């Protein structure tokens, strides 16, 4: 049988990925693919040791699809195992062939093991329920320490208490922050006025006398902005020589 033939079997299941409801996180009905598989076997009254793989694989896939478990990786993992087993069971083999290992053996072992765990789980659940029928002494966590009641205070007591607290506060070290905004606009105007009168000025001309740090920065920013706009050129004839500011002459239109 070829793969195409196998897939073309009348009961060949289709797994529609992405169809149906979104990602299923908690599954109320089944606690996993093995649980679902056991459920199907019980429903069909089938022996674990002799699972008709083809039939149960199709039912498993149908159940996975109907329950919207398509995207639960654990279920898809089992689905793919079952489909593989189905293919392996369909492979021809000689009667009484030695060394033939039932491909279902691993699944049978897992199912039996899981079934046992299920029974223990039920036993544990009953034990926990029995235990829940009995109550120990109610445990109260130790209460947080409160001031001894009754707390009677006069206004004078309260105010003097506040005074004592305030006295204890060290006078804070304050630093006065003065807003000294950079005045780029007036610096721009000053430079433009200077350049209107002469072709070229020096950095110190532009700065003016008694310049503060804020003035220096404003002037620098104004120069950079004007240079960017193409209104002037900044020159430095030799390294470390004072900066020259030249009016931008109209470019030769060559």
């Amino acid at each position: 049988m070829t793969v195409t033939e196998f897939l073309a079997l009348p009961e060949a299941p289709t797994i529609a990925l992405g169809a149906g409801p979104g990602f299923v996180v908690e599954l109320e009905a089944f606690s996993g693919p093995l649980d679902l598989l056991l459920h199907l076997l019980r429903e069909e009254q089938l022996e674990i040791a002799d699972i008709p793989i083809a039939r149960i694989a199709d039912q498993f896939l149908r159940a996975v699809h109907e329950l919207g478990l398509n995207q639960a990786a654990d279920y898809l993992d089992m689905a793919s195992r079952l489909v593989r087993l189905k293919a392996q069971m369909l492979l021809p083999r000689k009667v009484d062939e030695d060394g033939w290992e039932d491909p279902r053996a691993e699944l049978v072992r897992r199912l039996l093991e899981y079934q046992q765990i299920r029974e223990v789980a039920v036993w544990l659940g009953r034990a926990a329920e029995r235990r829940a029928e009995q109550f120990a002494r109610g445990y109260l966590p130790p209460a947080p320490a409160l001031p001894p009641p009754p707390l009677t205070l006069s206004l004078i007591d309260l105010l003097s208490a506040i005074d004592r607290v305030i006295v204890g506060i060290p006078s804070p070290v304050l630093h006065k922050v003065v807003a000294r905004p950079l005045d780029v606009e007036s610096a721009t105007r000053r430079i433009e006025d200077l350049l209107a009168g002469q072709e070229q000025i020096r950095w110190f001309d532009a700065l003016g006398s008694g310049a503060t740090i804020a003035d220096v920065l404003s002037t620098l920013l104004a120069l950079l902005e004007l240079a960017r706009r193409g209104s002037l050129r900044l020159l430095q004839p030799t390294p470390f020589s004072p900066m020259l500011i030249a009016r931008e002459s109209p470019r030769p239109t060559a």
Partner: protein
Amino acid sequence: MNPLAQLLEAALFSACRPITAEELATLDPDASAAGVRVALEQLREHYDFNQHGVELVEMAGGYQILTRPVYAAAIERAQFTVRTPKLTAATLETLAVIAYRQPVGRLEIEEIRGVSAGGVLRSLQERSLIEVVGRSEALGRPLLYGTTALFLELLGLRDLIDLPKAEELTIALRPHRATSEGSDDAAVYVEAES
């Protein structure tokens, strides 16, 4: 009741968890281990013989005074206390695997249950029902888990020995009859297991 039994009763009444016999022995410097045992037996008989509403219960390696099950419904109805919420199937299955296979790693738990176990393990650890008991020598040195005393307390077990043995389970691994072709191998395997 002898004076030691009275002392033990007072101590157990004040405690909110099972107290071991060794801990109880520290209450009285003159008390011997045998004396504590006798006193505990006296206390148990006292509650049972006089039909008290509480009983002395042995669990998680210690002793605790608990109300009798018959009063559970009434106490709950009056909302004096609340019953521990039921454990989910996933929680119980995971606890079952760990209880029988400890120390056991996450991978083995997932293999047996056929589902990922990370979330359940975390919540069991947060509830102190399981704890990390070591690391496997396998690749990546995965964590190994085991059950705690609180697990025994939650189930009212004295010891892990109280868990049902494999042969006591109704679905113990027993040979299945070979019905049709292809089932022989599985049957042989099952026989070997049981």
